[in-house]
C-alpha cells in the first residue's frame, strides 16, 4: 500500500467531510497514467486530462484522490461560472455579511485535489484566477478579501479538456495549456473496454463485447455525421438497462442512439447498426 496513504489520517482533515473518497473506486488503468499523475502530484505540477467525454477521466481523478488520500473538489464548468463562484463570496447572515469560500479557496486551504471539469466551458475571466495557481506561484488571490492563499504542497490542480470539439470558441488557450502536464485519455482497447462495461454493469461478457462493437461502429461515424461516437459511459448505461431486463435493442436505442444524435437519418442508421449487432 501507498506510503502517502498510510501517512495521511482522515482525522487530520475535519473540514474535508464529504470530500474524502472512502472506498477504492474501480478504475482500470490503461497506460502509465497512474504513475504519471503521481509523479506530477509529488512535484506539485498541475495536470491536464485530455480526451473525449465519457472515457474515464472523472473516474480516474476519483481513483487518484483515493490513492493519494486527498480530498477531492470537483467543479463542472459552464459559461455562467464566474470567478466569484470559484473563489468565494460574501453571504448575508442575520445581522452581518459573512465570507464563504468557493470551491477553489476551499480546495487550496484543504490541500485537496481540485478538478475543473470541461475547463473550456468556463468564462474567460476565470482563467485569471487559474493561472497563478497553475504556475510556480501556486497562489490564489482572493481579491474581495484582499487575501493571498498559498497552496500547500499536497494541493493539486487538475483540469479536463475534450479536444474533440473543433470549435474555435472552445479552444484551450496556449497560455493556459502550457502550464499543465498533459495526460492523454482515449477509449480503451476493445477487450479492456468490454471488461470495464461488464464490471460496471454486471452484464455478461458476450453482451458487453457486442456493446463495444457497437461503440466502435458509432466511433467510425465521428466526423461523418456524428460529432462524437458512443463513450464508455453510454455503454455502461445501456448495459445497466439490459441487466435490468430491458430488451437489448431498446436499451441501446435509448441509452446510445438517442444520446448521440437528433438527426432522423443518423438516428435511423444507428438504430440499424444496433439491430445488426444484436
Amino acid at each position: 500500500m501507498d506510503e502517502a496513504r498510510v501517512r495521511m489520517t482522515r482525522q487530520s482533515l475535519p473540514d474535508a467531510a464529504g470530500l474524502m473518497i472512502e472506498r477504492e473506486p474501480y478504475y482500470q488503468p490503461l497506460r502509465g497514467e497512474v504513475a504519471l499523475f503521481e509523479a506530477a502530484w509529488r512535484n506539485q505540477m498541475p495536470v491536464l486530462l485530455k480526451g473525449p467525454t465519457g472515457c474515464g477521466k472523472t473516474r480516474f481523478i476519483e481513483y487518484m484522490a483515493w490513492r493519494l488520500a486527498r480530498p477531492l473538489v470537483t467543479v463542472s464548468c459552464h459559461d455562467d461560472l464566474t470567478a466569484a463562484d470559484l473563489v468565494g463570496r460574501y453571504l448575508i447572515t442575520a445581522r452581518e455579511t459573512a465570507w464563504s469560500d468557493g470551491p477553489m479557496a476551499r480546495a487550496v486551504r484543504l490541500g485537496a485535489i481540485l478538478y475543473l471539469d470541461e475547463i473550456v466551458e468556463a468564462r474567460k475571466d476565470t482563467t485569471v484566477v487559474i493561472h497563478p495557481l497553475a504556475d510556480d506561484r501556486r497562489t490564489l488571490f482572493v481579491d474581495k478579501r484582499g487575501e493571498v492563499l498559498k497552496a500547500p504542497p499536497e494541493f493539486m490542480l487538475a483540469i479536463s479538456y475534450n479536444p474533440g470539439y473543433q470549435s474555435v470558441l472552445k479552444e484551450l488557450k496556449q497560455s493556459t495549456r502550457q502550464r499543465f502536464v498533459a495526460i492523454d485519455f482515449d477509449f480503451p482497447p476493445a477487450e479492456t473496454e468490454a471488461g470495464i462495461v461488464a464490471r460496471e454493469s454486471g452484464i455478461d461478457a458476450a453482451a458487453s463485447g457486442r456493446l463495444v462493437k457497437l461503440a466502435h461502429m458509432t466511433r467510425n461515424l465521428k466526423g461523418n455525421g456524428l460529432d462524437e461516437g458512443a463513450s464508455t459511459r453510454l455503454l455502461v448505461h445501456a448495459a445497466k438497462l439490459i441487466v435490468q431486463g430491458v430488451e437489448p435493442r431498446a436499451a441501446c436505442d435509448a441509452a446510445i442512439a438517442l444520446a448521440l444524435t437528433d438527426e432522423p437519418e443518423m438516428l435511423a442508421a444507428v438504430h440499424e447498426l444496433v439491430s445488426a449487432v444484436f
Partner: protein
Amino acid sequence: MNSSARFSDNAPLDAAEIEERFEELVGAVLSSRRTATALSQELARQPRAVQEFTLHWVAITARSSPELAYQFATVAPGAIGALGVAGAEKWLLEAMDVFDREGLYRAAASLKDLAGFIRQARAQAGAVAFPEVARVLEHFLAGLSGRPMKLEADDVPWTDTDTVYLPRRITRYGRREENFRAYKVTAALLWAQARHGTFSLDAKRYPGTAPGLALLAALESIRLAARFERELPGLHRDLELLRQPAIESHFEPVVKALRSESAGVADSLLALQRLPADARAPDWVFLGRLEPQRALGVRAERIARDRQALQSAVARLRAEMRAADGGATAPAEAARLRVAVREMPGDAQQLDISLELDGRTMAPTPEVSALIESILQDLGELPEEYLVAAGDGAYRTENAGEPAELVPGIEAPAEGLLYDEWDFRRRHYRKDWCVLAERDVQPGDSRFVPAALIRYRAEVWHLRRSFEALRGEDRRLRGEPWGDEVDLDAAVRALTEMRSGAELAERLFVRRERKLRDMAVMFVVDMSGSTKGWINDCEREALVLLAEALEVLGDRYAIYGFSGITRKRCEVYRVKRFDERYGGEVQQRIAGIQPLDYTRMGVALRHLTGILAAQEARTRLMITLSDGKPDDFSDGYRGEYGIEDTRQALLEAKRAGIHSFCITIDREARDYLPRMYGAAHYTVIEDVARLPLKVAEVYRRLTS
C-alpha cells in the same frame, strides 16, 4: 414583427389578406383578367394550417416558377383534402422535379392529374426509392467499417469497392419495412464484398460468362452471410428472412465449406466448379451483379494511393520525431513503423492499432489509422514494405524551379496593391513582389440560387434548424442596472459598501439575454481554372447553403474569391463584403463565380487577412475552399514554393488572431496538406457532391 404576430394568432386569414400575399408571391403571372380573387376566397374558407401550408409552398415554388406556383395554388385545397398535408407535399415535390427535368408544361400537367397521383400512390404504398434510403444506408455502411463508401443508384446492385450501387426502387414486397430491409441487406452484402475480399484474386480467376458470375455472386452471398451470422447476428436474421426461395439442394454439398471461418473467395470459386452444369443462380432479392474487372481496377488504384500516403506519413512522423529530438535520432536507412493489430476473438472488425517507430511507441494519427485500416481491408495484412518511409519526410515536389521573371505580355494593372511573398529557399520575404487588385464578380444567372434552394430544400430546412439551435442560447448577465432577478452577489456587496458609508450601487440585477455571437467570418473561394465544372458548381451551391444558414445565425460574414495569373496580376473578387446585405445582388454574384486562371493563394490570403483583421469581433474565422495545390503560370509558384508561401500566409493570419480552416477537394496528393496547413485546421473532401453540406457542417462544428 408583423408576420410573427400573425403567426401566433390561429384564426384563419381572410380573403383580402390572402390575396395580398398572392400578389406579393405570384404577382408576375397575374393580370387584370387573371386575378387571385377567386383563389383567395377559396383558401379563406380553409383552416389556418392549410392556409399556411399553401402559402409556404407557393412561396417556395414561386422562386423557380411563379406560374407553377399559381397552378399549385388553384388545386392545393383539393389536394390537401384528398392526400393530407404530407401527401400533398410529396405530390408538389414530384411536380417540381418534373419541372426541373421537363419544364413547366409537363409540371403543370402533373399537378392537374391529381387522380393519377392518388392511384399511383396507392399502388406503390409499400415501394421504397433510393433517395429515401441513401443517407441512412451511407451512414450504416460507414458505421460497419471505418472506410466510408459512396452510394449511387443504378439498374442493378453492384460495387466497384469504392461505391455501392443500389436499385432505384424496390417494390418487391407489399410493405415498406420489407422493401427497406431488402435495400439494407443488399447494401450490406455489397459492403461485405469489398470488406471481405470478394475482389482479392487475379482477374484471370473470375468466370468470364454472365451465368458463371451470377452463380459466383450467389455463392459469395452464402459465404458472406455466414460471416454475418458470426459477427452481425441481427443482420443475418434479416438476410435469412429475405432468402426466398430456400437454398436449392444442388448447393447443399458445397455450402458447408463456404461457412467455415477461414473461407475466402477462392473457396467460392472452388465450389463453383463443383456445382452441376445445369445449376442456375437463385432469384434472391439481395443478389447483385459482380463486376470483377472494374472492381479490381478501382481496388488497385486505391491500394497504390494508400501505400504512397502511408509511406509519406511514416516519413513525416519520423521527420517530426527527429526535429523534436533536435536531430539526435540517427537517420536510419529505412524508417520502420511497427503496427500491432489486435483482433477481438471471433471478430475481424475491431482493430487496435499502435505504432512503434524506431523503438518508440506512439499514438497513430487519425490519418495513419484510416490508411492502415483501408489497407487491411484490401489486403488482409499490412505488407512490410508499406511501412518503409518514403523520402526524407518532405512531401513530394514537382517543378520546383526558381521563380522566373515576368512572362511577357502580362502587365500589372495601373493601381494594384503590393504584397510581399515568402521565398522559402532564401527564408525571407520578397518585397512588394505581388500586385493585387480587388474587383467585383460579374453577376451571373439569377435563377441559380433559387434552383439550388429547391434542390437542397430538405438540407436547407435541416441546416436552418440546426443553426437555430446554435443561436438560441441564453446567457445570464450579472450586475446589470435592470433585469429579471436580483443579483445576490452584487446586492451583498452593495450592502457591505453602504454600511461603510458608500452610496447604494445601481447594478444589482441579473438579466437574461440572447448570447451575442460576436463573430466575423471570411469565406475564401478558389476561382482558379482547375475548379472548372463540377467543383465550381458545388462551391457555388455550398455558398448558397451557407448563406441561408448564416442568415439564421446573424453572424457577420463576407465572401471573396481569388484567382490570377503571375505575380503581376493577382485578383481578389468581391462576392459579399462584410457591410453588405445578403440579397438578390449577392445571390447573382454567387452565381457569377467562375473558374478563371491560377491559384496564387498566398497573396490572396494576405489581402483577405487584412480585411478580416480590420473587423471588430471577438472571434475571426477564415474558411478557405480550394481544390488543391497552389499553382501559378510558369513563374515557379507551382510546387514547394507555392506550398511554403501559402503556409507562411496562414501563419501570418494566425498571428493576426485569425482562426483558419481549409476545406480541400483533392483525393490524389494529400501529402503536402499537413505541411501547408500547418497553422490551420483542415479537412479533405473526396466527394465533391458532399461539399455544400460539408461546409455548413464544418462551420457549425467550428462555431458551436
